[in-house]
């Protein structure tokens, strides 16, 4: 493993860009959201659908659809929409995205020749 003796390449927590920090926090919530809804959907469909009755006459309908579709897909979908709207309107932080660096219209190389202002 290669490590510098000095760790001076790192940006410390305090100096990190605020947008980066809020994005990281939001990322954790998004991943948590995915895990919760994946478990809800797959487990509910497994419980009510895969291991449910195979008799078509015994099939329960909720709002015109098989009950496993309603509880395992439609309900979590609606709840996830509600969560997404809450996340977008109340949780996600606004930031200044920064001004555009002059994009290299003259075709400079990928390699930036310095002049960093960080």
């Amino acid at each position, binding site marked *: 493993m290669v490590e510098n003796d000095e760790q001076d390449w790192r940006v410390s927590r305090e100096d990190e860009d605020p947008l980066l920090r809020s994005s990281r926090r939001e990322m954790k919530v998004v991943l948590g959201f995915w895990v919760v809804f994946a478990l809800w959907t797959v487990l509910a469909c497994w419980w009510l*659908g895969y291991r449910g009755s195979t008799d078509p006459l015994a099939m329960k309908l909720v709002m015109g659809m098989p009950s496993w579709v309603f509880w395992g897909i439609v309900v979590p979908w609606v709840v996830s929409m509600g969560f997404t709207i809450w996340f*977008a309107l109340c949780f996600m932080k606004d*930031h200044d995205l920064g001004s555009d660096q002059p994009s290299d219209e003259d075709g400079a190389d990928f390699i930036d020749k310095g002049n960093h202002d960080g």
Partner: protein
Amino acid sequence: MGDAADSGSSAVLWTFGAYMVAVFFLAWLAGRVKEEKKEGFMSDYFLGSRGFGVWALALTAAATSASGGSFMGFPALIYTHGWVLALWIAGYMTVPLVAMALMGKRLNQVARRAGAITIPEILGKRFNSAAVGATATIMIVLFLFCYLLAQFKAGSKILSVLLEDSPIYRSAVNGMAQLIDGVPWIGQAEPDYVLCLVVFGIAVVAYVSYGGFRAVVWTDVMQGVVMGFGVVILLVLALSQVGGLANASRQVAAMTPPEFATGWVELADGATAEEEHVLAKGTWIAGSEEGELVRLAERAVIPAGDKAGEPMEFLITDSAVAEAVDIELAEGYAVAIKERMPHANGAGEAGVYSRPPGPSRDKTLGYLTVAMAFCWFAFWPFGGVGQPHNMVRMMIFDKTQVLRRALVTLALYFGFIYLSLVIVFVCARVLLPGMEIDADRVMPEFAKAVTASAGFPWLAGLVVAAPFAAVMSSVDSFLLVVSSSVVRDLYQRHINPDAPESRLRKLSYAVTAVVGALAVIIAVNPPEYLQDLIVFASEGLAACFLMPMILGLFWQRMTATGALCGMLAGAVMQAAIYVIGFYVNEKFGSYDMLGLQPFFWDVAASTIACITGSLLSAPPSRELVHKFFARRDN
């Protein structure tokens, strides 16, 4: 009857024509705006100057992600396997949040700090490495070109279904047949398909070349709206004609899967035919056993002087499937069945269309096992966020407020579209029996059938414009991503860094046109395994770009070596899984290790390679890390 069909199809043609005029008008308008903006041709042509609003962002993301698959392949799958497709697509409930909130804001910021307008450029600059940029460019061009081919094919197929009854179209097809007769490569294809492919190709290439990214986004917005309306119309008509969802669900629950069979058609009295008898594909005949109906999966001919036609394929269904609709049987014919091919899962069982795993012709465990359901739930959001054409969309807004509102719009839009499509095509099982013979055509056929029964045949033009819009809005984005990679990341970086703007401008138009033309020529005789190629390309792109991009945006220690290893490991793993699949299955396709999709193994390999490669290489320079991670107080 013929006149009625002609006038109906002319109405369809007019509606569709009006839609195309609107597309071109928007492209022309976008081109005008582009010409008025004097500075920064490249950034404007490939990114529309990053100033789009909420509706543009939401609908361009929706329209690009909903490709031909959503409106052609997905309906076919719902029709074939039933309610279980609701579970297959359920991962879309997490797509808006994962696709936009996981890295949208940060990607936009890094792109601005880098002054980058393409994905290879962001990666190249983030890691200060020409090799990373070049590798990304090559991966994009290779994988996206496979995608383009498939979408061109889908667009042409929809167009041919839409226009097939129109007299003008039929005479154009005859003209095309004479034109391509004997021409190498092109002459082997069906003339109607070639005609539609050429029309589709010219239309898309013209508006993308002229209008650039702004035209793509503006037309995406319109196409997104058309898709939305198309689904509303279908939903209302399907539910009213089937007598309510509960009724449809009960009828679907009573159905048993059909059987495919081989055999031949003969005259019912066993006599020799005195003249030639021709039965069109899709003709229904009473089956040899009580309560069975047979549908011809291809055209049948009994030549004069023969007792029977050539061996062919049939679909045999239970007469219960035809309860809701009147089926006209061809009288005087019978079928002799040679071999029956029942479903591997669900044969003879009622109720399989209403519960998971869903019936399957070849999978003994059923269509969707629990493990696969989980895989798809992960693939839709995380596979989607890794696609470069979706990442590009995160670079086009200039305020985070736009992103937040677009998220709300997208969540509502996806929820509505996908749940409605499942309901519509469950109803289609009841209203349009026997479509298993050509399941990919169920969407346009169903649109035509329900609008005609409702007395508004012209509406079919608008409804069928929806899948066409979906294909077109994906093709235009892919086309632009490929051409931007060639012009910006290959030519401008490596061949002629001092090229004047006028040359870049001409080159951008030319490359867009050449890539489009090349795709049209190859798509004339597309490889048979095209659908597998789409899956291969989308998994490959996500495998290459997902982890290098996410780690590059959030992990300071990530290095150029790590990014290169990550991209290559994803691509190599993907290729290896398909090579193993080829040897095991003896056809192009993946090998699902432990029952999981290749995407999982690709991402795992890419993650390990990114982290190991980064930790084993020297840490990045202070300048580079500070440029992208440190706060800027000014």
